[in-house]
């Protein structure tokens, strides 16, 4: 299977995302001005500062040609993963519920956090087994998940909260410790922590690889038993 990793002007985590994808499948870069997804099977929107994050994080990127194609792909059930700035872009685009606001500390945070996987029935979390939280880094200034009361109740009730910071690990003041959510169908997932930075043992944890492995497993052609 083939992943596509979107590159906006200002993206900065697309190389790690590509490497993470290549660990479990093939991967191509998708340029922001191309409305063509090159036939990829899954799309990753990486972290960074798309279009300088001018106006509001993710606000401008959502109108790029590639995002039109990603929106269509996501609405048709294609697996989409937004990481950090990618999560912000998906929220701005209305593909995911809620918004990301400045951390309560108003500071840039960069640290390893423990993340509980709440919903394993998405194409990005199916390979997660056991109940140990994942060890994944966060690095952001605008990561406080917010949704109005009614929306928050709805996504909690419908299982759209996919990731939660483990008790005591909420770094940014996110409501209900929410670290990541999905759309109603579950195929579009976004999270603030960076699984692509936790794939190689050199970086201290390989837990992030499970997300990419999940998508690769879901999309791989079934291999008949030998």
């Amino acid at each position, binding site marked *: 299977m083939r992943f596509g990793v979107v590159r906006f002007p200002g993206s900065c985590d697309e190389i790690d995302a590509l490497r993470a994808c290549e660990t479990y499948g093939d991967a191509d870069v998708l340029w922001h001005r191309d409305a063509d997804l090159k036939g990829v099977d899954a799309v990753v929107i990486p972290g960074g500062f798309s279009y300088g994050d001018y*106006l*509001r994080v993710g*606000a*401008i990127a959502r*109108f790029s040609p590639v995002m039109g194609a990603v929106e269509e792909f996501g609405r048709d059930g294609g697996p989409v993963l937004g990481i950090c700035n990618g999560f912000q872009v998906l929220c*701005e685009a209305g593909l995911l519920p*809620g*918004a990301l*606001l*400045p*951390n*309560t*500390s*108003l500071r840039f945070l960069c640290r390893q956090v423990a993340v509980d996987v709440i919903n394993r029935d998405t194409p990005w979390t199916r390979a997660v087994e056991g109940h140990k939280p994942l060890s994944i880094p966060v690095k952001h200034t605008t990561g*406080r998940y*917010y*949704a*109005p009361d009614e929306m928050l109740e709805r996504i909690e009730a419908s299982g759209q909260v996919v990731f939660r910071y483990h008790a005591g690990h909420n770094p940014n*003041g996110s409501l209900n410790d929410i670290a990541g959510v999905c759309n109603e169908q579950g195929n579009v997932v976004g999270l603030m922590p960076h699984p692509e930075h936790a794939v190689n043992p050199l970086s201290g944890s390989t837990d992030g690889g499970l997300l990419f492995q999940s998508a690769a497993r879901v999309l791989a052609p079934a291999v008949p038993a030998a």
Partner: protein
Amino acid sequence: MPRARVLIRPKEGILDPQGQAVERALPALGFPPAQHVHGGRLVELGVEDTGQLDEMCQKLLANPLVEDYEVELLEQ
């Protein structure tokens, strides 16, 4: 070309750490305490068709989920 000013502020009830930081900073500088401090953004623009300003705010200038906005037309 007509000019407009758009004021964008965090919706009431949403935690505003920027406003809180200013509230804490004022007494620290010896000023009397201030309450209900909120910071937002100001966008000024010249547009031919002022009828589209609201849509511009909804789609791009503000995020209506978390921000309120006001559009003011400026005297020429």
